[in-house]
């Protein structure tokens, strides 16, 4: 099972311009300048690839921080 820390770094990998160090478990990711619907789809695809969990668009929307999203993934496992 991947830790929260590992999840945060996989999450940060989906960005191109944002400094990975800027992204932590507490980051409110919808507010990041680079956040976009395509990055949202990439995060869903990453979760599918790494955790075999099919997150829904509504899971993304209702998560505020990166940790919220990690907890959604755990809940689906």
């Amino acid at each position, binding site marked *: 099972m991947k830790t929260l820390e590992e999840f945060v770094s996989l999450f940060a990998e989906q960005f191109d311009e944002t400094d990975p160090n800027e992204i932590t478990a507490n980051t409110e990711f919808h507010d990041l300048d680079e956040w976009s619907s*395509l990055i949202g789809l990439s995060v869903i*695809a990453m979760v599918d690839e790494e955790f075999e969990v099919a997150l829904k*668009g509504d899971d993304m929307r209702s998560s505020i921080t990166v940790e919220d999203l990690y907890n959604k993934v755990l809940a689906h496992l």
Partner: protein
Amino acid sequence: MGVSYNPFSLEGKTVLVTGASSGIGQETAIQCSKMGAKVIVTARNEDRLKETLSQLEGEGHSMFIAELTQQEELEKLVGSINVLNGVVLCAGKGMTSPFPFSTRGKYDSIFEVNFFAPIELLRLLVKKKKLEKDSSVVFVSSIGGVDSFQMGNGVYGASKAALNSMMKFCAKELAAKKIRVNTVNPGMVNTKLIQGGAISEEQHKMDMEKYPLKRYGEPEDIAYGIIYLLSDASSWVTGHSLVIDGGVTI
């Protein structure tokens, strides 16, 4: 002209509809029966297919359970058919996957259902001479991959583009047998294919605003276009893609 005048009638025609247990295929089967066709419905889920069968109007309809990605099941389905005047190849599935995550396995799983299954089914129907002269074949393609290139829709869109291409090859070759081949290319339609996936309800609402007619389609919007292509009203139409999309590709 009597009240019964109807150039779009399917009276006297037998029509096979795949993907008939849900969404566009289910509605198409129902509407075809209302237009007078005898309908053969097929899909994998028995309960939902029975539900479709029970909603068909008139007599002489039948159902056949088949997993269309399995060659033996395709052959059994074709073997069970006597003769057809129309085929609606509607079974399909969706996928949202950004390019870097689109592995070969994802393309395979989508192309199996959206491309290889309908093409192989049509091949068998033609080879076994199950299609009467003047038959009409309708593939349910999409604007996706043909006129519209939404982010994350590449695997799905490529399967539909391939289908659109084969439609034209088939239209040209099968014209010798007087078989017409066309596609309908829908925009977003309210079915379970688009619900509960990677695109949230809120994102769909925003997307709907991009449609000049300010809504997504309903299955009957597509079924009516399919009926036109199945009917003798479209006798001189082949190799065509009928876009039904609320104007979104304008």
